């Protein structure tokens, strides 16, 4: 088992501010000024009320494991990293994001576990938001 690869995301003009923030170690989220919905995945349009009045706000970077899997058979660049944890983390602001849980053994992850964001530099002016258990 090796460390997880740092795959650079396919950044768009719309999501550039989000990824620029990750490179500085900050997690930001788009929030609708009309209805206060915190939007995920990031887009400058509110799927709840159809407003395009959206601002970026700082996220706490904390959340809870909503579901997860221990991938035993990874594909492509992830093959040597298996077993690794793919998870769906519910941020305290509401959105659920696809991510990895790192910093603990896969068998120690549980649904409902509290987690904190950690960033992994991709070398392309972006960083992947991963999460580690809050208690370590």
């Amino acid at each position, binding site marked *: 088992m090796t460390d*997880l690869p*740092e*795959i*650079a*995301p*396919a*950044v*768009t003009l719309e*999501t550039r501010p989000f990824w620029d923030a990750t490179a500085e170690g900050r997690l930001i989220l788009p929030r609708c000024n009309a209805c206060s919905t915190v939007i*995920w*995945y990031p887009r400058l349009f509110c799927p709840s009320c159809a407003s395009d009045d959206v601002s970026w706000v700082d996220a706490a970077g904390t959340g809870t494991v*909503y*579901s*997860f*899997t*221990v*991938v*035993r*058979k*990874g*594909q*492509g660049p*992830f093959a040597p*990293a298996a077993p*690794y944890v*793919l*998870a*769906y983390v519910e941020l305290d602001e509401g959105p*659920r*994001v*696809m*991510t*990895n849980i790192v910093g603990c053994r896969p068998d120690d992850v549980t*649904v*409902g576990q509290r987690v904190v964001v950690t960033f992994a530099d*991709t070398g392309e002016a972006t960083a*992947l938001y*991963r999460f580690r258990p809050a208690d370590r």
Partner: protein
Amino acid sequence: MTHPLRGQSAIVGAVDAVSPTGSLDRTASQLEVDMVRAALDDAGLSIRDVDSVISTSGMMASLDLAERMGVRGRYTDTTMTGGSSFEVHVEHAAAAISAGYCEVAVIVYAATPRSGKNPFAGGPSMGGDLPFLEWDLPYGFGLPASSYSLAARRHMHEYGTTSEQLAEIAVAFRAWAAKNPNAYRRDPISVDDVLASPMVAEPLHKLDCCLVTDGAGALVMTSAERARDLRRSPVYVLGAGTAHTHGMSISQMPDLTTSGAAVSGPNAFAMAGVRPADVDVVELYDSFTITALMTLEDLGFCAKGEGGAFVEGGRLGPGGDLPTNTNGGGLSYTHPGMYGMFVLVEAVRQLRGEVVDRQVAGAEIAVANGCGGVLSCTSTIVLGTESTL
């Protein structure tokens, strides 16, 4: 009041091609034409009768296929919703035929992931700024099993569903496959066999996951009126419904334990004027055991969360109360990437009473449920024999 489209169109030709080796040794284009010809022959129609070609295997797929066959169509559809595409096609064709846009529609699918090129490599659907590439892929979301395992884990967490219960589904479908000489996997398996198979993405084992085989199939549809003059007993489209909840990112699924079948199912049943209790045979998309379990709940065969207990005791298998995936399903019969075609073909075969060892006696109402993407888009078709009109 009876829905105006209920029973107005019928499936009059249905064929498929699979191989005991998993490989068909024909190109996908060859297989498409083979299937169209065989389905028309099954119906007692010819290529000259066709005025609508419906297919989904690539850019302008239906136009290229029609050109290859010398068909100039007046209605076409290339809707791509993953594995549920063919149920959506049946829904669209039923509406188009009833509205007079076309009279004889062929719906076709072929893929050769085992012997040929992976149908999901490249392709027009993978370009552009898909959210999936930005928000899911960097975390290792490479194998479909990973996303389905997230749903399975959540279902277990919320409802206490167990790996043993999921395994019961694989065991039941394998028991049906044992009765199907064309199934890819026919050796009986036990719950312990499923649990002992290698873990792919926890909690899903290898035997919780569908096959990778070549496969092809086609359907012919026409109006109820014309159907009565054809070779085979018509299988009428009684109801249809489609629902999608998200695209290719399972992170956008509103509730990991509920698929769109909770909407498409009730809508299709309402249109058909039947209840789940009226259904004689169920054919559903079993990409993974969890897909089958959630679908049974969402269609209303049991309450949400009770699927685990519901599938125990061989209920879905031969001799069970709810015969399901009587060809062996995507888990044991065939799975070329988009299994929805085979769901429909088997439903038609059961309602025609033409299968031998695995025939559900007296089957008059069947449900065919497709599920495409990553639990993204479901489409439910309720089919019935002449006696159900």
